[in-house]
């Protein structure tokens, strides 16, 4: 385990009622990498994400982000933290009473003091960055398609140039072309902005194209590795996942592409 972990989860326990979701889970995310998180339904992928960003209080365990313990952070300290990451929720979770541009500006207004004209220009830049047409900025979320809402959600997550972005199933519900474009977008942004990406996904193609390492949630713990190392793993679920028909196809496609 390296010193350079930007997110460090140790001994995490999450439990709802009688059902234990995570049991003594350890996970490191290194600076500048794209970490994919996979697992069967109900293995707590989204719960893990929510726990790291502080939306869910774990029963036990420590979560250190940027080298600081998360629990016990309040007020201004917490706010300073929140500024350094962005979250893209499954369906974008845009504020439905605001336009896309206002959605993006809300974080900018909260955390920075950018002069209005420059703020509008940066907003337009973000809208362009995620591949939306400029006129999308004045539209309301209900007027956008699902894919556009996701892009707008990503633009909001990137509004104040965070160091980490958390993506909850970014390609779910997109058509294959849209999903591939989204993958490329994430790679691009990672390259140019030096982002660390924590990505929960079901999408094998996107997992193989985008991620540097993969964390598989099995037996209430996280097993981390690269595609190659995980393909040699003996755990039945992991074998099924990577050696099943879809897994094979995705791996074969990625080999062909290289």
């Amino acid at each position, binding site marked *: 385990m390296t010193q350079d972990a930007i997110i460090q989860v140790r001994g995490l326990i999450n439990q709802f009622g009688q059902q234990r979701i995570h049991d003594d889970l350890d996970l490191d995310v290194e600076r500048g990498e794209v970490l994919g998180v996979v697992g069967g339904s109900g293995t707590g992928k989204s719960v893990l994400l929510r726990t790291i960003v502080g939306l869910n209080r774990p029963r036990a365990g420590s979560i250190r982000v*940027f080298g600081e313990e998360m629990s016990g952070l309040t007020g201004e300290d917490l706010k300073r933290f929140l500024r350094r990451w962005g979250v893209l929720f499954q369906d974008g979770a845009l504020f*439905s*009473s605001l336009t896309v541009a206002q959605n993006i500006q809300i974080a*900018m207004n909260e*955390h*920075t*003091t*950018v*002069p209005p004209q*420059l703020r509008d*220009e*940066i907003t*337009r*830049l*973000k809208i*362009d*960055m995620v591949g939306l*047409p*400029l*006129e999308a*900025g*004045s539209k*309301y*979320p*209900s007027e956008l398609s699902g894919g556009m809402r996701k892009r707008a959600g990503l633009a909001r997550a*990137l509004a*104040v*140039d965070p160091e980490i972005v958390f993506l909850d199933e970014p390609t779910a519900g997109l058509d294959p072309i849209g999903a591939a474009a989204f993958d490329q977008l994430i790679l*691009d942004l990672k*390259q*140019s*902005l*030096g982002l660390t990406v924590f990505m929960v996904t079901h999408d094998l193609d996107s997992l193989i194209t985008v991620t540097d390492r993969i964390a598989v949630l099995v037996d209430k713990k996280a097993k981390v590795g690269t595609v190659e190392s995980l393909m040699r793993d003996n755990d039945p679920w992991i074998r099924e996942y990577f050696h099943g028909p879809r897994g094979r196809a995705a791996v074969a496609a990625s080999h062909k592409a290289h």
Partner: protein
Amino acid sequence: MTSPEGWIKRSDEAGSTVLLVGGDWRIDEMATLSRAVERALPSSGSGDLRVDARGLTSIDSAGAWLLFKITQLAGQRGYKAEIKGLDPDFETLIERATQAAERFTGQTTAPPVNPIIRELNQIGKAVFDVFGKVVELISFLGLTVTSIAFGLIRPWRVQIRATIRQVELTGLNALPIVGLLAFLIGVVIAFMGAVQLKKFGAELYTVDLVGVAVLRELGVLFAAILVAGRSGSAFTAQIGTMKVNQEVDAMQTIGLNPVDVLVLPRILALMVSLPLLTIYADLVGLAGGAVICATVLDISTSAFITQLATAIDPSTFWIGMMKAPVFAFVIAVIGCYEGFKVSGSAESVGQRTTTSVVESIFLVIGIDAAFAIALSYLGI
């Protein structure tokens, strides 16, 4: 994280203007940096302008945009601008900003509209909306009436479980609040009557006042207003949320008629529960009057009942009761109609719920007034 602040300096060399930039160009520093750029950049000039970026330690997309803007502004002011010495890691960001700006020139944001025209536009739209709404409401009414008619022909098709459940929700669960309110209404009227009628020595007629007011008007009116607030709003919110979740669409694809499944049980339920609530409100309202008569006016409960029997014609009670199903129908239809009008967002659910309550209370009172006028012409 402490970081070197971003800075920009002008340092001319022979023949060309040079701007030195360095430090962190990040969004947190945009306020100071954009002012510094304004100061450093000459307002007009010619020849080469070089932006020397060797001092940059880090940059984000906002910083890249500002850096690009220096070259853009310099271009507009007559210079031939160029960024030099940029770390290759930062180049992609500048490129992005440049490409974005090129795309911006092709696209324009909507031009501002004259405020007077916008206002006129809104007034016109509002007028048309009202007409549109009346037409839609009538067609929705048609749909529900057809559905009711079919329900009468084939009663086994009516969702009887859902209907009973709605009777429980709209009727049984409303008993405490309707009872409390009706009792207080009875108390208030009795007090008012007692004070005024005492001046003429006609305290006994307080009983008549309470009886007529509660049975003919207030019992049913307050029950209906409460039901509009409690259940009409609930109808809108329930159906509206189902609309947002595409449950209504799902029903249609399975072959269920949303009007049969969602609207009919609610209308029938309300037409059962509101008359029952009205009887209950009448009784409790009279009880409220009786309590005041007994405590303040020394009219015993038996005397109250005797006086009530002579003062009140059965028709008084039936006039009140007659209105209950009408009110129930109106409240349920408006509640369901507004629910179906919900579109897309959570905000829309809230808006429609408000509209539904306001409209149904307005219509209840309006119809009550129409009843009063019509009955007085008929001499009842």
